[in-house]
Protein backbone atom coordinates (compact mmCIF):
# COMPACT_ATOMS: atom_id res chain seq x y z
CA UNK A 1 0.00 0.00 0.00
CA UNK A 2 2.83 2.35 1.02
CA UNK A 3 4.80 1.41 -2.06
CA UNK A 4 1.83 2.23 -4.25
CA UNK A 5 1.31 5.56 -2.48
CA UNK A 6 5.01 6.47 -2.86
CA UNK A 7 4.61 5.84 -6.60
CA UNK A 8 1.54 8.10 -6.66
CA UNK A 9 3.49 10.84 -4.85
CA UNK A 10 6.33 10.57 -7.37
CA UNK A 11 3.93 10.63 -10.32
CA UNK A 12 2.10 13.71 -9.01
CA UNK A 13 5.44 15.46 -8.37
CA UNK A 14 6.46 14.80 -11.96
CA UNK A 15 3.13 16.17 -13.21
CA UNK A 16 3.64 19.33 -11.16
CA UNK A 17 7.15 19.60 -12.66
CA UNK A 18 5.60 19.46 -16.11
CA UNK A 19 3.50 22.51 -15.19
CA UNK A 20 0.14 20.98 -14.29
CA UNK A 21 -1.98 22.65 -11.57
CA UNK A 22 -2.27 21.13 -8.11
CA UNK A 23 -6.12 20.90 -8.16
CA UNK A 24 -6.05 19.11 -11.53
CA UNK A 25 -3.51 16.64 -10.27
CA UNK A 26 -5.39 16.01 -7.03
CA UNK A 27 -8.66 15.52 -8.92
CA UNK A 28 -7.24 12.30 -10.38
CA UNK A 29 -6.69 10.84 -6.88
CA UNK A 30 -9.86 11.71 -4.90
CA UNK A 31 -9.34 8.96 -2.29
CA UNK A 32 -5.83 10.17 -1.40
CA UNK A 33 -6.32 13.85 -2.16
CA UNK A 34 -6.10 15.15 1.44
CA UNK A 35 -2.87 13.40 2.38
CA UNK A 36 -1.44 14.00 -1.06
CA UNK A 37 -2.15 17.72 -0.96
CA UNK A 38 -0.24 18.38 2.27
CA UNK A 39 2.76 16.35 1.08
CA UNK A 40 2.85 18.07 -2.29
CA UNK A 41 2.69 21.47 -0.62
CA UNK A 42 5.68 20.56 1.56
CA UNK A 43 7.54 19.35 -1.51
CA UNK A 44 6.76 22.55 -3.42
CA UNK A 45 7.88 24.64 -0.44
CA UNK A 46 11.16 22.69 -0.29
CA UNK A 47 11.72 23.36 -3.97
CA UNK A 48 11.39 27.06 -3.32
CA UNK A 49 14.40 27.07 -1.01
CA UNK A 50 17.46 28.53 -2.66
CA UNK A 51 20.73 26.82 -3.38
CA UNK A 52 23.25 28.52 -1.07
CA UNK A 53 26.09 30.40 -2.71
CA UNK A 54 29.50 29.76 -1.21
CA UNK A 55 31.72 32.75 -0.37
CA UNK A 56 34.43 33.59 -2.90
CA UNK A 57 37.11 33.72 -0.22
CA UNK A 58 36.15 30.37 1.23
CA UNK A 59 36.03 28.87 -2.24
CA UNK A 60 39.54 30.20 -3.02
CA UNK A 61 40.86 28.99 0.32
CA UNK A 62 39.37 25.57 -0.25
CA UNK A 63 41.04 25.39 -3.63
CA UNK A 64 44.40 26.40 -2.15
CA UNK A 65 44.02 23.75 0.54
CA UNK A 66 43.43 21.13 -2.14
CA UNK A 67 46.46 22.26 -4.18
CA UNK A 68 48.62 22.29 -1.04
CA UNK A 69 47.59 18.71 -0.38
CA UNK A 70 48.47 17.89 -3.96
CA UNK A 71 51.93 19.44 -3.63
CA UNK A 72 52.55 17.52 -0.43
CA UNK A 73 51.56 14.25 -2.06
CA UNK A 74 53.80 15.06 -5.00
CA UNK A 75 56.75 15.63 -2.69
CA UNK A 76 56.07 12.35 -0.92
CA UNK A 77 55.81 10.63 -4.28
CA UNK A 78 52.26 9.48 -3.57
CA UNK A 79 50.91 10.91 -6.78
CA UNK A 80 51.06 8.98 -10.03
CA UNK A 81 52.04 5.73 -8.39
CA UNK A 82 48.92 3.66 -8.86
CA UNK A 83 46.98 2.94 -10.88
CA UNK A 84 48.45 3.69 -14.28
CA UNK A 85 46.31 5.20 -17.00
CA UNK A 86 44.70 2.76 -19.43
CA UNK A 87 46.96 1.29 -22.12
CA UNK A 88 45.39 3.32 -24.95
CA UNK A 89 45.85 6.59 -23.04
CA UNK A 90 49.49 5.70 -22.36
CA UNK A 91 50.15 5.07 -26.05
CA UNK A 92 48.46 8.31 -27.02
CA UNK A 93 50.63 10.07 -24.42
CA UNK A 94 53.78 8.45 -25.79
CA UNK A 95 52.83 9.46 -29.32
CA UNK A 96 52.22 13.02 -28.17
CA UNK A 97 55.59 13.04 -26.38
CA UNK A 98 57.39 11.76 -29.47
CA UNK A 99 55.74 14.46 -31.59
CA UNK A 100 56.75 17.09 -29.05
CA UNK A 101 60.36 15.92 -29.21
CA UNK A 102 60.18 16.09 -33.01
CA UNK A 103 59.19 19.72 -32.78
CA UNK A 104 55.42 19.50 -33.22
CA UNK A 105 54.73 21.36 -30.02
CA UNK A 106 51.43 22.90 -30.87
CA UNK A 107 49.46 20.60 -33.07
CA UNK A 108 46.16 22.08 -34.14
CA UNK A 109 43.02 20.43 -32.82
CA UNK A 110 42.07 19.36 -36.35
CA UNK A 111 45.48 17.71 -36.81
CA UNK A 112 45.02 15.78 -33.58
CA UNK A 113 41.59 14.71 -34.73
CA UNK A 114 42.99 13.64 -38.09
CA UNK A 115 45.69 11.58 -36.35
CA UNK A 116 43.19 9.87 -34.12
CA UNK A 117 40.96 9.18 -37.15
CA UNK A 118 43.94 7.72 -39.05
CA UNK A 119 44.86 5.43 -36.18
CA UNK A 120 41.24 4.33 -35.85
CA UNK A 121 40.92 3.63 -39.59
CA UNK A 122 44.16 1.65 -39.72
CA UNK A 123 43.36 -0.41 -36.67
CA UNK A 124 39.80 -0.93 -37.93
CA UNK A 125 41.03 -2.16 -41.31
CA UNK A 126 43.51 -4.49 -39.68
CA UNK A 127 40.81 -5.94 -37.41
CA UNK A 128 38.41 -6.37 -40.34
CA UNK A 129 41.07 -8.22 -42.36
CA UNK A 130 41.77 -10.46 -39.40
CA UNK A 131 38.08 -11.13 -38.89
CA UNK A 132 37.57 -11.93 -42.58
CA UNK A 133 40.50 -14.36 -42.67
CA UNK A 134 38.66 -16.98 -40.63
CA UNK A 135 35.19 -16.36 -42.07
CA UNK A 136 33.11 -19.16 -43.56
CA UNK A 137 30.60 -19.12 -46.44
CA UNK A 138 27.52 -17.23 -45.26
CA UNK A 139 29.50 -15.05 -42.84
CA UNK A 140 29.46 -11.27 -43.04
CA UNK A 141 33.10 -10.96 -44.08
CA UNK A 142 33.22 -13.95 -46.43
CA UNK A 143 32.70 -11.83 -49.57
CA UNK A 144 35.51 -9.53 -48.45
CA UNK A 145 37.75 -12.53 -47.89
CA UNK A 146 37.00 -13.91 -51.38
CA UNK A 147 37.64 -10.55 -53.02
CA UNK A 148 40.91 -10.09 -51.17
CA UNK A 149 42.07 -13.56 -52.14
CA UNK A 150 41.08 -12.97 -55.75
CA UNK A 151 42.88 -9.65 -55.86
CA UNK A 152 46.04 -11.33 -54.60
CA UNK A 153 46.36 -8.85 -51.74
CA UNK A 154 46.23 -11.59 -49.13
CA UNK A 155 48.20 -14.83 -49.02
CA UNK A 156 45.98 -17.77 -48.21
CA UNK A 157 47.26 -19.41 -45.06
CA UNK A 158 44.08 -20.68 -43.45
CA UNK A 159 43.82 -24.16 -41.98
CA UNK A 160 41.20 -24.95 -44.64
CA UNK A 161 43.82 -24.52 -47.35
CA UNK A 162 46.35 -26.52 -45.39
CA UNK A 163 43.84 -29.38 -45.32
CA UNK A 164 43.35 -28.95 -49.06
CA UNK A 165 47.11 -29.28 -49.46
CA UNK A 166 47.06 -32.55 -47.55
CA UNK A 167 44.14 -34.12 -49.40
CA UNK A 168 44.59 -32.55 -52.84
CA UNK A 169 48.30 -31.92 -53.22
CA UNK A 170 47.92 -31.23 -56.95
CA UNK A 171 45.66 -28.28 -56.35
CA UNK A 172 48.13 -26.36 -54.23
CA UNK A 173 50.71 -26.74 -56.97
CA UNK A 174 48.19 -25.45 -59.43
CA UNK A 175 47.34 -22.58 -57.12
CA UNK A 176 50.97 -21.64 -56.66
CA UNK A 177 51.37 -21.99 -60.40
CA UNK A 178 48.44 -19.66 -60.84
CA UNK A 179 49.92 -17.08 -58.50
CA UNK A 180 53.23 -17.40 -60.32
CA UNK A 181 51.42 -16.91 -63.60
CA UNK A 182 49.65 -13.86 -62.25
CA UNK A 183 52.91 -12.51 -60.86
CA UNK A 184 54.73 -13.10 -64.13
CA UNK A 185 51.79 -11.49 -65.95
CA UNK A 186 52.12 -8.43 -63.76
CA UNK A 187 55.88 -8.32 -64.29
CA UNK A 188 55.55 -8.62 -68.05
CA UNK A 189 52.89 -5.94 -68.11
CA UNK A 190 55.05 -3.66 -66.04
CA UNK A 191 57.92 -4.14 -68.45
CA UNK A 192 55.63 -3.53 -71.38
CA UNK A 193 54.35 -0.39 -69.75
CA UNK A 194 57.87 0.83 -69.12
CA UNK A 195 58.93 0.05 -72.66
CA UNK A 196 55.85 1.51 -74.28
CA UNK A 197 55.87 4.78 -72.35
CA UNK A 198 57.56 7.41 -74.44
CA UNK A 199 58.15 9.77 -71.56
CA UNK A 200 60.00 12.40 -73.50
CA UNK A 201 57.37 13.35 -76.08
CA UNK A 202 54.19 13.07 -74.07
CA UNK A 203 52.60 15.89 -72.18
CA UNK A 204 51.51 15.24 -68.58
CA UNK A 205 47.70 14.94 -69.12
CA UNK A 206 48.16 12.60 -72.08
CA UNK A 207 50.55 10.55 -70.04
CA UNK A 208 48.04 10.29 -67.22
CA UNK A 209 45.25 9.29 -69.60
CA UNK A 210 47.50 6.77 -71.29
CA UNK A 211 48.49 5.34 -67.94
CA UNK A 212 44.88 5.06 -66.86
CA UNK A 213 43.93 3.28 -70.08
CA UNK A 214 46.95 1.02 -69.75
CA UNK A 215 46.01 0.28 -66.16
CA UNK A 216 42.47 -0.64 -67.18
CA UNK A 217 43.75 -2.89 -69.93
CA UNK A 218 46.17 -4.50 -67.49
CA UNK A 219 43.40 -5.08 -65.03
CA UNK A 220 41.25 -6.69 -67.72
CA UNK A 221 44.13 -8.89 -68.81
CA UNK A 222 44.81 -9.88 -65.25
CA UNK A 223 41.16 -10.76 -64.70
CA UNK A 224 41.15 -12.83 -67.93
CA UNK A 225 44.35 -14.62 -66.84
CA UNK A 226 42.80 -15.32 -63.50
CA UNK A 227 39.66 -16.71 -65.09
CA UNK A 228 41.72 -18.91 -67.41
CA UNK A 229 43.78 -20.21 -64.50
CA UNK A 230 40.61 -21.02 -62.61
CA UNK A 231 39.24 -22.83 -65.65
CA UNK A 232 42.49 -24.84 -65.96
CA UNK A 233 42.28 -25.71 -62.34
CA UNK A 234 38.74 -27.00 -62.68
CA UNK A 235 39.60 -29.00 -65.81
CA UNK A 236 42.60 -30.61 -64.20
CA UNK A 237 40.45 -31.52 -61.21
CA UNK A 238 37.91 -33.13 -63.53
CA UNK A 239 40.63 -35.08 -65.40
CA UNK A 240 42.15 -36.32 -62.15
CA UNK A 241 38.76 -37.48 -60.95
CA UNK A 242 38.05 -39.31 -64.25
CA UNK A 243 41.46 -41.03 -64.10
CA UNK A 244 40.79 -42.10 -60.57
CA UNK A 245 37.45 -43.57 -61.61
CA UNK A 246 39.05 -45.52 -64.47
CA UNK A 247 41.74 -46.96 -62.23
CA UNK A 248 39.12 -48.05 -59.74
CA UNK A 249 37.10 -49.69 -62.53
CA UNK A 250 40.17 -51.60 -63.78
CA UNK A 251 40.92 -52.75 -60.29
CA UNK A 252 37.39 -54.08 -59.83
CA UNK A 253 37.50 -55.93 -63.19
CA UNK A 254 40.82 -57.56 -62.46
CA UNK A 255 39.52 -58.64 -59.06
CA UNK A 256 36.49 -60.22 -60.75
CA UNK A 257 38.68 -62.06 -63.29
CA UNK A 258 40.94 -63.41 -60.58
CA UNK A 259 37.92 -64.69 -58.64
CA UNK A 260 36.55 -66.43 -61.77
CA UNK A 261 39.92 -68.04 -62.47
CA UNK A 262 40.12 -69.27 -58.92
CA UNK A 263 36.68 -70.79 -59.17
CA UNK A 264 37.60 -72.56 -62.47
CA UNK A 265 40.81 -73.98 -60.95
CA UNK A 266 38.82 -75.32 -58.01
CA UNK A 267 36.35 -77.00 -60.35
CA UNK A 268 39.20 -78.64 -62.35
CA UNK A 269 40.72 -79.95 -59.17
CA UNK A 270 37.43 -81.47 -58.06
CA UNK A 271 36.95 -83.18 -61.42
CA UNK A 272 40.46 -84.61 -61.32
CA UNK A 273 39.82 -85.96 -57.86
CA UNK A 274 36.57 -87.56 -59.02
CA UNK A 275 38.29 -89.26 -61.98
CA UNK A 276 41.04 -90.58 -59.77
CA UNK A 277 38.61 -92.02 -57.25
CA UNK A 278 36.61 -93.64 -60.08
CA UNK A 279 39.70 -95.30 -61.45
CA UNK A 280 40.58 -96.56 -58.00
CA UNK A 281 37.18 -98.06 -57.54
CA UNK A 282 37.47 -99.81 -60.96
CA UNK A 283 40.81 -101.25 -60.06
CA UNK A 284 39.51 -102.59 -56.77
CA UNK A 285 36.60 -104.25 -58.55
CA UNK A 286 38.95 -105.96 -60.91
CA UNK A 287 41.04 -107.29 -58.06
CA UNK A 288 38.01 -108.67 -56.22
CA UNK A 289 36.87 -110.94 -59.20
CA UNK A 290 36.86 -114.75 -58.57
CA UNK A 291 40.38 -114.94 -58.22
CA UNK A 292 41.88 -118.23 -58.09
CA UNK A 293 41.34 -119.33 -61.64
CA UNK A 294 42.01 -116.00 -62.99
CA UNK A 295 45.11 -115.64 -60.97
CA UNK A 296 46.33 -118.95 -62.14
CA UNK A 297 45.32 -118.44 -65.77
CA UNK A 298 46.31 -114.98 -66.20
CA UNK A 299 48.91 -113.71 -63.77
CA UNK A 300 49.55 -110.79 -66.15
CA UNK A 301 46.03 -109.45 -65.61
CA UNK A 302 46.63 -109.51 -61.90
CA UNK A 303 49.78 -107.60 -62.41
CA UNK A 304 48.03 -105.08 -64.63
CA UNK A 305 45.39 -104.57 -61.95
CA UNK A 306 48.08 -103.81 -59.44
CA UNK A 307 49.67 -101.45 -61.89
CA UNK A 308 46.30 -99.71 -62.44
CA UNK A 309 45.88 -99.29 -58.72
CA UNK A 310 49.33 -97.75 -58.47
CA UNK A 311 48.51 -95.43 -61.35
CA UNK A 312 45.28 -94.38 -59.75
CA UNK A 313 47.14 -93.53 -56.57
Amino acid at each position, binding site marked *: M*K*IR*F*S*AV*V*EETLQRLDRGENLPDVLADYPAQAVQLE*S*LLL*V*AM*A*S*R*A*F*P*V*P*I*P*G*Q*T*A*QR*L*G*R*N*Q*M*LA*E*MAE*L*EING*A*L*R*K*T*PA*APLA*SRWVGRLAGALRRMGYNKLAYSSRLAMVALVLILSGSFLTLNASASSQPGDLFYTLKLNLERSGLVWVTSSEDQLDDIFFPGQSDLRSGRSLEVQSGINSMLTETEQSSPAADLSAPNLQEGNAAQLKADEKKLAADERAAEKDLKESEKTAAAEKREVEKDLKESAKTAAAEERAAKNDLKEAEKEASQQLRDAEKQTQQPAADKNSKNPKSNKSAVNNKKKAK
Partner: protein
Amino acid sequence: MDINEKALLYRAHAGDRGAAGTLYERYYRDIYSYIFYRVNDVATAEDLSAEVFVRMIRHLPSFLAQGKPFISWLYMLARAVIEDYKRNPDQLISARDISGNGSNGRIQSQGRDQQALGCFQKALQHLSDNQKEIIIHRFVEGRSVEDIADLTNQSERAVRTLQLNALISLEDALMKEGCI
Protein backbone atom coordinates in the same frame (compact mmCIF):
# COMPACT_ATOMS: atom_id res chain seq x y z
CA MET B 1 31.48 9.33 -16.34
CA ASP B 2 32.28 11.08 -19.61
CA ILE B 3 35.68 10.85 -21.27
CA ASN B 4 36.62 14.46 -20.45
CA GLU B 5 35.96 13.90 -16.79
CA LYS B 6 38.02 10.72 -16.85
CA ALA B 7 40.86 12.57 -18.55
CA LEU B 8 40.65 15.32 -15.93
CA LEU B 9 40.83 12.76 -13.15
CA TYR B 10 43.89 11.05 -14.63
CA ARG B 11 45.57 14.40 -15.19
CA ALA B 12 44.82 15.46 -11.62
CA HIS B 13 46.21 12.16 -10.42
CA ALA B 14 49.36 12.83 -12.42
CA GLY B 15 49.82 16.14 -10.60
CA ASP B 16 48.12 18.50 -13.07
CA ARG B 17 46.93 21.43 -10.92
CA GLY B 18 44.79 22.85 -13.72
CA ALA B 19 42.82 19.60 -14.00
CA ALA B 20 42.34 19.43 -10.24
CA GLY B 21 41.17 23.07 -10.27
CA THR B 22 38.65 22.34 -13.01
CA LEU B 23 37.20 19.44 -11.04
CA TYR B 24 36.98 21.68 -7.97
CA GLU B 25 35.13 24.43 -9.85
CA ARG B 26 32.79 21.93 -11.44
CA TYR B 27 31.61 20.21 -8.25
CA TYR B 28 32.26 22.64 -5.40
CA ARG B 29 28.78 24.21 -5.43
CA ASP B 30 26.96 20.87 -5.39
CA ILE B 31 29.03 19.63 -2.50
CA TYR B 32 28.79 22.92 -0.61
CA SER B 33 25.00 23.04 -0.99
CA TYR B 34 24.63 19.45 0.16
CA ILE B 35 26.83 20.02 3.22
CA PHE B 36 25.20 23.36 4.04
CA TYR B 37 21.74 21.82 4.38
CA ARG B 38 23.17 18.89 6.27
CA VAL B 39 25.08 20.92 8.92
CA ASN B 40 22.94 24.08 8.84
CA ASP B 41 25.92 26.45 9.09
CA VAL B 42 27.66 28.45 6.34
CA ALA B 43 31.16 28.51 7.82
CA THR B 44 31.16 24.82 8.73
CA ALA B 45 29.82 23.99 5.28
CA GLU B 46 32.73 25.88 3.69
CA ASP B 47 35.30 24.12 5.86
CA LEU B 48 33.82 20.70 5.27
CA SER B 49 33.55 21.29 1.52
CA ALA B 50 37.25 22.14 1.38
CA GLU B 51 37.99 18.99 3.35
CA VAL B 52 36.01 16.91 0.83
CA PHE B 53 38.27 18.09 -2.02
CA VAL B 54 41.44 17.53 0.01
CA ARG B 55 40.29 13.95 0.56
CA MET B 56 39.42 13.69 -3.13
CA ILE B 57 43.06 14.37 -4.06
CA ARG B 58 44.31 12.03 -1.35
CA HIS B 59 42.11 9.09 -2.35
CA LEU B 60 42.09 9.59 -6.11
CA PRO B 61 44.22 6.47 -6.83
CA SER B 62 41.80 4.18 -5.00
CA PHE B 63 38.83 5.80 -6.76
CA LEU B 64 40.40 5.35 -10.21
CA ALA B 65 40.90 1.68 -9.44
CA GLN B 66 37.19 1.31 -8.51
CA GLY B 67 35.67 2.91 -11.62
CA LYS B 68 32.52 4.26 -9.86
CA PRO B 69 30.70 7.42 -11.03
CA PHE B 70 32.76 10.37 -9.83
CA ILE B 71 29.88 12.48 -8.48
CA SER B 72 28.49 9.66 -6.34
CA TRP B 73 32.01 9.07 -4.97
CA LEU B 74 32.27 12.79 -4.09
CA TYR B 75 28.96 12.65 -2.22
CA MET B 76 30.22 9.55 -0.42
CA LEU B 77 33.30 11.53 0.66
CA ALA B 78 31.04 14.40 1.75
CA ARG B 79 28.94 12.02 3.88
CA ALA B 80 32.11 10.64 5.48
CA VAL B 81 33.41 14.17 6.20
CA ILE B 82 30.08 15.14 7.84
CA GLU B 83 30.14 11.97 9.95
CA ASP B 84 33.71 12.71 11.06
CA TYR B 85 32.72 16.28 11.90
CA LYS B 86 29.77 15.11 13.99
CA ARG B 87 32.00 12.68 15.91
CA ASN B 88 34.79 15.19 16.52
CA PRO B 89 34.08 18.78 15.48
CA ASP B 90 37.39 20.18 16.83
CA GLN B 91 39.55 17.96 14.67
CA LEU B 92 38.55 19.75 11.52
CA ILE B 93 41.21 22.27 10.53
CA SER B 94 39.48 25.43 9.46
CA ALA B 95 40.86 27.29 6.46
CA ARG B 96 39.18 30.35 7.91
CA ASP B 97 41.23 30.06 11.12
CA ILE B 98 44.49 29.66 9.18
CA SER B 99 43.92 32.64 6.95
CA GLY B 100 42.14 34.80 9.51
CA ASN B 101 39.36 35.67 7.02
CA GLY B 102 35.70 35.30 7.83
CA SER B 103 33.15 33.56 5.71
CA ASN B 104 31.26 35.56 3.12
CA GLY B 105 28.94 32.82 2.00
CA ARG B 106 25.30 33.74 1.59
CA ILE B 107 21.84 32.57 0.74
CA GLN B 108 20.03 34.36 -2.06
CA SER B 109 16.89 35.28 -0.18
CA GLN B 110 15.46 38.32 1.52
CA GLY B 111 12.97 39.31 4.25
CA ARG B 112 10.16 36.79 4.56
CA ASP B 113 12.05 34.26 2.48
CA GLN B 114 14.94 34.49 4.92
CA GLN B 115 12.54 33.61 7.73
CA ALA B 116 11.08 30.71 5.78
CA LEU B 117 14.58 29.45 5.01
CA GLY B 118 15.51 29.55 8.68
CA CYS B 119 12.36 27.62 9.48
CA PHE B 120 13.05 25.04 6.82
CA GLN B 121 16.63 24.59 7.98
CA LYS B 122 15.50 24.04 11.56
CA ALA B 123 12.82 21.57 10.48
CA LEU B 124 15.32 19.71 8.36
CA GLN B 125 17.44 18.99 11.42
CA HIS B 126 14.59 16.84 12.82
CA LEU B 127 14.97 14.41 9.96
CA SER B 128 17.26 11.36 9.82
CA ASP B 129 20.41 11.61 7.69
CA ASN B 130 18.88 9.56 4.89
CA GLN B 131 15.73 11.68 4.88
CA LYS B 132 17.75 14.93 4.87
CA GLU B 133 19.79 13.62 1.99
CA ILE B 134 16.75 12.76 -0.10
CA ILE B 135 15.09 16.15 0.53
CA ILE B 136 18.31 18.00 -0.44
CA HIS B 137 18.94 15.96 -3.60
CA ARG B 138 15.32 15.80 -4.74
CA PHE B 139 13.93 19.24 -3.88
CA VAL B 140 16.82 21.62 -3.23
CA GLU B 141 19.17 20.36 -5.96
CA GLY B 142 16.26 19.25 -8.16
CA ARG B 143 17.62 15.81 -9.09
CA SER B 144 15.41 13.03 -10.44
CA VAL B 145 14.67 9.79 -8.60
CA GLU B 146 16.87 7.92 -11.12
CA ASP B 147 19.83 10.23 -10.43
CA ILE B 148 19.39 9.88 -6.69
CA ALA B 149 19.24 6.10 -7.02
CA ASP B 150 22.61 6.25 -8.83
CA LEU B 151 24.11 8.66 -6.32
CA THR B 152 23.06 6.75 -3.25
CA ASN B 153 23.45 3.29 -4.76
CA GLN B 154 19.83 2.33 -4.04
CA SER B 155 16.92 1.13 -6.15
CA GLU B 156 14.44 3.68 -7.50
CA ARG B 157 11.69 2.01 -5.51
CA ALA B 158 13.68 2.44 -2.29
CA VAL B 159 14.29 6.09 -3.17
CA ARG B 160 10.56 6.69 -3.77
CA THR B 161 9.65 5.12 -0.42
CA LEU B 162 12.38 7.14 1.31
CA GLN B 163 11.05 10.28 -0.38
CA LEU B 164 7.54 9.64 0.94
CA ASN B 165 8.83 9.06 4.48
CA ALA B 166 11.03 12.16 4.24
CA LEU B 167 8.08 14.33 3.13
CA ILE B 168 5.87 13.02 5.96
CA SER B 169 8.66 13.67 8.51
CA LEU B 170 9.33 17.13 7.10
CA GLU B 171 5.66 18.02 7.31
CA ASP B 172 5.62 17.00 10.98
CA ALA B 173 8.86 18.90 11.64
CA LEU B 174 7.56 22.05 9.96
CA MET B 175 4.44 21.87 12.13
CA LYS B 176 6.58 21.40 15.26
CA GLU B 177 8.68 24.43 14.35
CA GLY B 178 5.52 26.42 13.74
CA CYS B 179 6.37 27.03 10.11
CA ILE B 180 3.00 25.81 8.79
